[in-house]
């Protein structure tokens, strides 16, 4: 797939992650003990042989920049191609998000034109997945498609929560797309778009230019839907695990799902590895009274308390007598003696003092802001 470049939207326009995205873009939200959300789609692209990736960022992208650095960890510290962050043009500062995907993509026009590749793999950052696009790409080229939309089959139809912002497609027996339609309760298709596209680059450039001139709004799904008659669009069924993060609830669920063996073993290893920024922490240390069950633990932690069904990030300290269950504890947080946390999400660098008790529900998670002392 040397002939494809990647474009990732750093923001999900529908990111409702509360204080987790107050000071960082969705792409930079920590997940799964040692990753940021963007690591998954970015690693998927790299593992598919893409060596030229542009990331469209809007606001709050300092933490994303800090995370990606020179791109070394994704082997994207390249002289030819590599990683490019595309900040908003000054001329675009007056535009608001309501202008839609094409306006966001306008910032990438220069990148698209200067890159030698002929195809574009385009995705939002909010998918927790481990995909390889080789097969879809080959089918795209072979079918002479202009756009290929990756989708998943819902079984049974419409059973996932949060479908209301999703698009469904209908395809014929050759997987050619005949309809793209926003979710409705009377939905007739079980093919839900992943919002990952393979697009011929020249066409994408045309679309951006054309869309800007006519001020065309909306998401790419809507834009493609309007043109369905005029262009050859194919579908491609992705069969791997994909979790979509668009709320605190889906964020929490995705973390908890990774505790499952069958998901964990695929998500981190197959078809490729998931890369992230290296922090050089020591191995985690289990002390005398540590009790840990069904949990993911990153490096650099010191554990002397109880941890169950939880996701523990790098450099966390859990003191004796502390009890943590069904919770997510982010980097460098500290849970002091005899504190009790249930259904809690601690952002980075939080301190929970002795004997404090915080209890949420699966339906109502307690979220503590970065750096807070409770």
């Amino acid at each position, binding site marked *: 797939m040397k002939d494809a470049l990647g474009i990732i939207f750093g923001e999900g326009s529908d990111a409702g992650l509360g204080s987790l995205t107050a000071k960082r873009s969705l792409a930079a939200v920590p997940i*799964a*003990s*040692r990753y940021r959300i963007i690591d998954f789609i970015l690693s998927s692209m790299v593992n598919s042989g893409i060596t030229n990736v542009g990331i469209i960022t809007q606001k709050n992208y300092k933490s994303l920049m800090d995370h990606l650095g020179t791109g*070394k*960890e994704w082997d994207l510290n390249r002289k030819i191609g590599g990683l490019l962050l595309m900040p908003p043009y000054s001329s675009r500062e007056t535009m608001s998000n309501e202008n839609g995907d094409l306006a966001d993509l306008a910032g990438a026009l220069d990148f698209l034109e200067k890159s030698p590749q002929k195809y574009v793999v385009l995705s939002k950052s909010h998918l927790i997945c481990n995909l390889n696009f080789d097969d879809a790409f080959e089918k795209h080229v072979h079918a002479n498609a202009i756009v290929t939309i990756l989708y998943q089959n819902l079984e049974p139809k419409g059973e996932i929560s949060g479908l209301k912002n999703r698009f469904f497609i209908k395809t014929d027996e050759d997987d050619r797309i005949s309809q793209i339609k926003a979710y409705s309760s009377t939905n007739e298709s079980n093919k839900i778009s992943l919002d990952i596209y393979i697009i011929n680059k020249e066409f994408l450039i045309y679309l951006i230019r054309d869309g800007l001139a006519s001020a065309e709004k909306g998401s790419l799904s809507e834009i493609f839907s309007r043109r369905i008659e005029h262009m050859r669009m194919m579908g491609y069924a992705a069969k791997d695990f994909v979790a979509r993060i668009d709320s605190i609830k889906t964020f929490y669920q995705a973390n908890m799902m990774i*505790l499952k063996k069958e998901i*964990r073993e695929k998500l*981190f290893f197959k078809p490729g*590895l*998931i*890369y992230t920024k*290296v922090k*050089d922490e*020591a*191995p*985690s*240390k*289990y*002390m*005398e009274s*540590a*009790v*840990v*069950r*069904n*949990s*993911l*633990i*990153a*490096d*650099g932690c*010191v554990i002397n308390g109880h941890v169950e069904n939880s996701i*523990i990030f790098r450099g966390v300290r859990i003191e004796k007598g502390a009890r943590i269950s069904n919770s997510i504890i982010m980097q460098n947080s500290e849970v002091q003696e005899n504190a009790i946390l249930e259904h809690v999400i601690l952002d980075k660098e939080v301190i929970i003092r002795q004997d404090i008790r915080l209890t949420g529900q699966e339906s109502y998670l307690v979220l503590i802001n970065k750096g807070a002392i409770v």
Partner: protein
Amino acid sequence: MRNKDCIALILAGGQGSRLGVLTKKVAKPAVNFGGKYRIIDFPLSNCTNSNIDTVGVLTQYQPLELNSYIGSGQPWDLDRSFGGVYLLPPYMKSETGIWYKGTANAIYQNMDFIQMFNPKNVLILSGDHIYKMNYAKMLDFHNENNADATISCIKVPWDQADRFGIMETDKSMRISNFFEKPKNPVSNMASMGVYIFKWEVLKNYLIKDEADLSSSNDFGKNIIPTMLHDGQKMFAYKFKGYWKDVGTIYSLWEANMELLHKKPAMNLFDKGWRIYSKNAIQPPHYTAQGAIIKDSMITEGSVIYGKVKNSIISSGVKIGKNSIVEDSVLFPSVVIEENCVIKKAIIGERSVVMDNSKIGVEDAIEGQVPSKMCSDGIVLIGSDLIVESGSNIAKNVMVE
């Protein structure tokens, strides 16, 4: 021409034969340590943390794994444009090439390399010690004394002093006598094998030493005694802190176990002096519902279903249900299947212990010969081996 104030040279050519099967395929400095490190991470990280950004690693024996581990030097921030890390094997000049004969000859053969940086001082290190040391402070001491050579030293137990180079100094720490492995040591100030030399001075001694056909071309046996004899200004720099030669199976095991102390002398959690290592690209480790882990260090990619006590678990290790691992060091990607008992073992990379096996439990078993290299009951299993289901391996056995 740009100069460097001080560059470092790490002697990483030794075969490390006392580590038995662990160095069958890799050079000693590449041996795993502490769950996610290799021995050479310690001198390399010390250099980075001491602001020494140019390091030559002198390799000779089985360097492939070491080379690909060090790579561009990026994990230690040593991928610099002018400087950084260089791997220095022996090479051919004109028609001839010779392998490194001794520590001093290895440096002698790389004089052109050193000259590229035209350094004021060279720091000579060995690649087989576990310690954290600020070389910048030693360099300050060296410069303040305007010394020709400074040797870092540490107090060792008197009964071990005969295994080291032993120094006598005056009150200003100027060295008056140096004895390489003396039978009757006059002091317990032992050389750590960490030297700083003025490059201009060392250069001349290397050339003289090379010309002397009776010399064994060694720092401890030849260069240092000769310099001292010539009245060069040589000082001893006292180092306090953890320092451990991990040249034997027992000392390697012991150094690993010392990390598990409640307040270990070698603190790997010190953010002011990180030990860097090449990342394994593994997910967080997973501890299952029935697992019990106490007094242990566990790192990324491991999956633990069994019981782990007082052990070091490296990246990608799997420990199955109802298995017990105690007082052991498991190298990366080791698999312990179900219902095993592992005691006081070092198990090499990617080896698999199949179910219902016992390792290090029995004192002796007929047909199993204890290894001369193993002691104190330690079992050593090499890399890439398969220990079949229901095996029983006695204490002090080495499996190749």
